[in-house]
């Protein structure tokens, strides 16, 4: 039987005296569009950074595509497509140069990398005037990061706020591509604050608060009655208090 895409057990990461991730355990099945939600500072980005090996966990274990991290990190990285919250783009390269560079880093032959780079640039409408990435708008940078995550045709996508700053057309395109990837058997692990998008795309959702998973399940499991995902989110993170206006504002 094929191993799950991600298995995380009792993962813990402490900064100073605050646990950013506190005994987190979750399993993401293969071929699943998985939403990983939480309020600001809940530990989402820290979790993704541990999954990609960018930061080491203090304790707990990570298994990705059946391989332990750390241990087989190079093999794992070859099969991951990463769209992080912060830019991983080199400003002084053009989009084409950057994508070709990333393709070659993943072991593609130069000609193949260059061909795929051209195709992705056309797909994401990034090929105008051979702009340097430093000249890109925020949305264009996200699209470039997404293109870079796709170039080696990965089995698993780890995406931190991939739609942030992307216009409606770009977001639609990205969603279509991601859904197509899931249909082809890829797994997507995504964080987003746009709950409507998560509600529409994801099969399963986990909500994390203060480093711990507070609820996990399929969309149908999570919602009761007419509740939206936003209602569930606000309820489970305990943020239902009413807004008290300030006198001077």
């Amino acid at each position, binding site marked *: 039987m094929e191993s799950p895409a991600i298995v995380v057990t009792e993962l813990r990461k402490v900064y100073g005296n605050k646990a950013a991730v506190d005994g987190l355990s979750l399993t993401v099945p293969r071929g699943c569009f998985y939403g990983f939600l939480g309020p600001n500072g809940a530990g989402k980005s820290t979790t993704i950074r541990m999954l*990609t090996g960018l*930061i*080491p966990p203090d304790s707990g274990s990570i298994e990705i595509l059946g391989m332990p991290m750390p241990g087989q990190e190079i093999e794992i990285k070859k099969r991951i497509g990463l769209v992080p919250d*912060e830019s991983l783009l080199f400003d002084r390269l053009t989009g084409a140069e950057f994508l070709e560079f990333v393709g070659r880093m993943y*072991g593609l032959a130069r000609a193949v990398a260059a061909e795929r780079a051209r195709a992705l640039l056309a797909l994401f409408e990034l090929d105008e005037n051979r702009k340097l990435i430093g000249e890109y708008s925020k949305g264009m940078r996200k699209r470039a990061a997404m293109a870079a995550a796709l170039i080696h045709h990965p089995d698993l996508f780890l995406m931190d706020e991939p739609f942030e700053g992307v216009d409606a057309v770009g977001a639609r395109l990205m969603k279509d591509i991601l859904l197509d990837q899931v249909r082809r058997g890829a797994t997507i692990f995504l964080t987003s604050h746009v709950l409507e998008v998560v509600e529409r795309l994801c099969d399963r959702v986990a909500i994390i608060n203060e480093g711990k998973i507070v609820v996990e399940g399929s969309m149908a499991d999570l919602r009761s009655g007419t509740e939206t995902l936003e209602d569930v989110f606000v309820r489970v993170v305990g943020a239902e208090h009413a807004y008290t206006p300030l006198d001077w504002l």
Partner: protein
Amino acid sequence: MIPAILRAQFLSMRGLRRGSSRRGAIFSLLIAAGWYGFWAMVGFSVYGVTADPSMRPLVEQWLSPSLLVVFLYWQLAPLLTASFGASLDLRKLLAYPVPRGKLFTVEVLLRVTTAFEMLLVLAGAFTGLLLNPIHGGWTVLPALAATLLLFVLFNLLLAAGLRSLLERLLSLKRVRELMVLLLVMALASPRLLVSAGVPLHRYQQFLSPAAGWFWPWTAAGRAMLGQDIAVGFLVLAAWAGGAWLFGRRQFARSLRFDAQAAAASSLREGRPRVGGMVERLYRLPGLFLPDPLAAIVEKELRALSRTPRFRTVFIMGFTFGLLVWLPLITGRSGVRQSVMTEHFLVVVSLYAFSMLGQVSYWNAFGFDRTAAQVWFSLPVPVSRALAGKNLAAALFILLEVAAITAVCLALRVPIPAARILEAFLVTPVAALYMLSVGNLSSVNFPRAMDPDRVSQGGGANRFQGLLFLVYPLALLPILLAYAGRYVFESELLFYAIMAFAAALGVAVYWIAMESAVKTAWVRREQIIAELSKTAGPVVTD
């Protein structure tokens, strides 16, 4: 408002320090102690001389020239070290309703950071003259203090104006490199005047206190010695007033300056041409190296050659670097034959190579900033990333040596072919040692560098000062080869020691690489955090 800005900066710096490792903090502290300790000793020596009554004739002769040196250091050190010290980050502050006058005051006060060393020297002179019984003792305190204050104020105001002017000019499309060349010419102008046959004694007018009071350093020198105090005050006040007008005007123009447009221009300037000659050059490493190494070298070649800061330092290597050393081999009748002349190319190449360090190998991930995460998230070992960056730096170093050789030949500096070959041999061997140290410093002391801030270097003044102490140690095997050549007058011995130095260099490089890779993996979180840091309302270049 000024306290709020300074407090925000203090909190930002505290935040930056809190995130740094203890090792880094101790290292920074040691460097600061060494650098400012040295200048405190200079200040103490100045005190010793100025306080000694028997030294009065010497002080009378050399006070004004010394003040000229202080002035030159204050105004030119930022250029020589490619570091402008701390300054206001106007992009962050312009959003708030802060009066321009207040911003200018803070900017002027921050100019202290470019030459705090000179304050230590001036403090030595002030104390010495005050305690010198011949000079007048405590009765001269008001005049002495007022003179020095005016001189310091003049320097601060002028430095603020120059900084605003230079930073604006250096941000403009295509003006950047031209500006560097003009500055080089300005710095070399005394040398050019001598070459043009202008008698050297003409310059003494600007230095000697007896020759006049027009210049700020002569006026200050005379007033400090109790001569023409009123005239000295007036002259210094006039200079300070002029500097204030200049500084205010330049600062106001910087406030109106559209940095974003300039940055966009600088990016457009670097926009590549499809299928051009340069593009083919970028792709050359791919013919000799396997991927991913070739891809990394290509990426570095492209990115660095499009980075204004890097290009500026590269050009300075074969222009300014050459002119700094040229006076040592030239006399009134042209180039002299000497040991220095014989090794001129090697010396200039090593100097230019050391200059390139601050924008390449000392802080290899500096320009990558947050994108440095790539090196830890791609399926490529960190050793490949470092090796690729080192290879790219080595290619630029060889290109720099070629450019220096071409300029030397154009200037008709008599360099035999053997010495040209020697420069191309010695520099790569030196590179092995320096890149080894660079790899260790890149993973232990990473620092984000803004490629659009042409004034920003890879380290603070004092860090660059420490590097000058590191060079002799790192270059010891090469120095031994030269010592062997001259003691035993044997070329064979020289090349034998160089071969040994090269072999040792490979071993050192390999060991340093192993250590750097281990450190990078263990410290990857801190490295990424350091490279992602942004400063407060004041930026330190």
